[in-house]
């Protein structure tokens, strides 16, 4: 009688500062498959985890924003390579979370292609959004984009992988760092994606991924004084208003990406990059 091998179950930890710690709160929430089997105990991320993530993101910002566009493009392409290598793993994880096999395959392919798309923008968005301005005085005047800083991202609820990738890629290709709260109901791919990031030469702290309850963490994403922009992808008018009000505490950029169909090509474009960029204009005399 053949013995079946006992598989090793994966522990889903959060991704913070380039490491995989457990939530400091020790709390968890179960994630079940469609048939009720417990797949994993997800970390129920805490405010302290969020705070530590912002510290890590802030600390990584100087280096990441100073890296060359070429390097960021190479790294994003590498993420695509790594994701392609784990294509099947992500397909099964999506199926486990209730997505049909056909849709899962499409979603993973679209995610890989989306990363390649944004990799290609790294050394080009500056060229289409910057300008030399013909001022009326004898000055050389130029405007360039600069990353805004630490971006908080509340990832789309209804898309475990593609929605996540669609929001992270344009933010980091532009030189920002980010703290991301994964979908509450479809959290698995976020953590596996963290593993992909970890093997792609992405410096620690550039992307920090938390799992947990939106209702517990949303307010902090909106109000943290050291976060420069907040991106949110779900919620009704009431929630939207609360986020905007709290963001006013430090005049954050508020970016609403609700009602996006992430599987459409319309949802990928360089404006998702420029939305988390500042514009800096410099003057210098022209003379001898």
């Amino acid at each position, binding site marked *: 009688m053949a013995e079946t091998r006992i598989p090793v179950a994966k522990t889903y930890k959060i991704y913070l500062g380039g490491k995989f710690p457990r939530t400091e709160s020790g709390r968890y929430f179960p994630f079940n498959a469609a048939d009720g089997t417990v797949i994993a105990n997800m970390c129920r991320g805490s405010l302290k985890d969020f705070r530590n993530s912002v510290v890590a993101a802030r600390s990584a910002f100087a280096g990441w924003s100073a890296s060359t*566009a*070429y390097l960021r493009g*190479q790294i994003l392409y590498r993420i695509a390579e790594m994701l392609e290598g784990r294509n099947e793993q992500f397909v099964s994880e999506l199926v486990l979370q209730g997505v049909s096999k056909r849709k899962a395959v499409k979603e993973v392919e679209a995610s890989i292609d989306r990363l390649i798309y944004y990799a*290609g923008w790294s*050394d*080009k968005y500056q060229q289409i959004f910057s300008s030399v301005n013909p001022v009326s005085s004898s000055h050389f005047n130029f405007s360039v984009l600069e990353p805004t800083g630490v971006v908080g991202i509340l990832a789309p609820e209804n898309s475990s992988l593609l929605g996540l990738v669609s929001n992270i890629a344009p933010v980091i290709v532009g030189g920002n760092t980010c703290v991301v709260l994964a979908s509450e109901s479809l959290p698995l791919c976020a953590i596996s994606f963290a593993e992909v990031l970890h093997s792609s030469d992405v410096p620690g702290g550039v992307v920090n991924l938390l799992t947990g309850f939106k209702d517990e963490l949303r307010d902090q994403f909106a109000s943290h004084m050291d976060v420069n922009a907040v991106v949110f992808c779900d919620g009704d008018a009431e929630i939207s208003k609360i986020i905007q009000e709290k963001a006013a505490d430090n005049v954050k950029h508020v970016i609403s990406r609700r009602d996006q169909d992430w599987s459409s090509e319309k949802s990928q474009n*360089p404006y998702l990059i420029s939305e988390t960029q500042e514009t800096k204009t410099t003057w210098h*005399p022209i*003379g001898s």
Partner: protein
Amino acid sequence: MSTDSTKLAFNDGWQYAPAPESIDHIQIDDHYGLFINGEFVAPEIDRYFESLNPATEKPLSNIALASEKDVDRAVKAARKAYTGVWSKMSGADRGKYLFRIARIMQECAREFATIESLDGGKPIRESRDIDIPLAAAHFFYYAGWADKLEYAFPARTPVSLGVVGQIIPWNFPLLMAAWKIAPALACGNTVVLKPAETTSLTAMKLAEVFRDAGLPPGVVNIVTGAGPTGAAIVNHPDVNKVAFTGSTEVGKIIQRSLAGTDKKYTLELGGKAANIIFADAAIDEAVEGIVNGIFFNQGHVCCAGSRLLVQESVADEVVRKLRDRMETLIIGDPLDKNTDIGAINSAGQLETIESYLSIGQAEGAEMYQSDCSVPDQGYWCRPTIFTGVSQSNRIVQEEIFGPVLAIQTFRTLEEGLTKANNTPYGLSGGVWTDKGSKVFKMTQKIRAGVIWANTFNKFDPTSPFGGYKESGVGREGGMHGLGAYLKLEA
């Protein structure tokens, strides 16, 4: 000023032992056919020419000589690939092939660099650290544009042209191939390219990369040969656009032969750039800029800083420091990692350079060359500077294309500017001053397509390159490099 008692000694004492790059990991075939329709094929007529190593004068391989019929075959393959496959493919998919090519080039970087130095004579340090990384980066950059063209042209629909014919020079063989092929493909065109006859090898290795990357057959075709092969490409009726980098003389011939046709063209031709040093420059760094400007790649650079214009009050200091620096430049085996100045690309080019050295001396200029030793075999020219020259000297007006610098002084900004612009060329220029406003004034007034301020000979795939006046028309690199490969429909 310095006297003999305060001379520095650079050539005695501790010496560097030879540090040759190994060649046991590279593959050069005994002969190469033409790369047409995705495979290497024999030329119509069984004629091959040797590709020599200019450092040893020994043959490296035998290269097929493409006839007019071979060119026709290549154009037909390019047309078929264009109509059937490439023009129908989405930009994103074209981009994926280009990304693949870039990645493979990075993997094979060392082999490419070694073969580039063997075939063309440039130091391994340069091919390893500059040529090959830039070539791969060019493919990486344009890969990203393939599915984003509509963002580069407001209110216009970009449409590919069809088949493009490309002719490239021998001074940066692989890099020039990348500069030509990458944007052409990103924009949806297919290519017939002829490398220079003295440097075909890295183009052949690049063809292997295209094949290994699965690039659909016929999208890029490489036909090797000399002038007549090039003319066949330029004049072929089914080529929609011609891209040429080379001498101004040949550029004019090409421009004439395209007159009356519908073909678009870009020409990247010669130059005689002025490198201008003001008294308030960071002098030591400016001297390094002179060295990078004229001795990089043995001076075989269209945008070389081949004229030095130095403000008179610092002229003696600059020349003294330049001479010191020249003493530490090592000429020798291009495969030695310590070589700064490699071999002159061919016997013909060496002859040209040497004739200018004679002309310069005959014109009354003072010639100075460093003391370095030079191997017995091969084509070599020591780094050379001429002082006591003026605008009217032939060595100041004409492009020498070797490690030869003509030095003049100037007193005021206006004088320097006038001298800098007093040339039919307009490819590049250099400005050295610590004063920001002066930098911008000079860059505003110098009539050249690329101006380096407090640096020189810097290249990047994102940065457009090309000349004014007889240095050519059109720009390569950056967003501006796309337009040449598209028609823009309203």
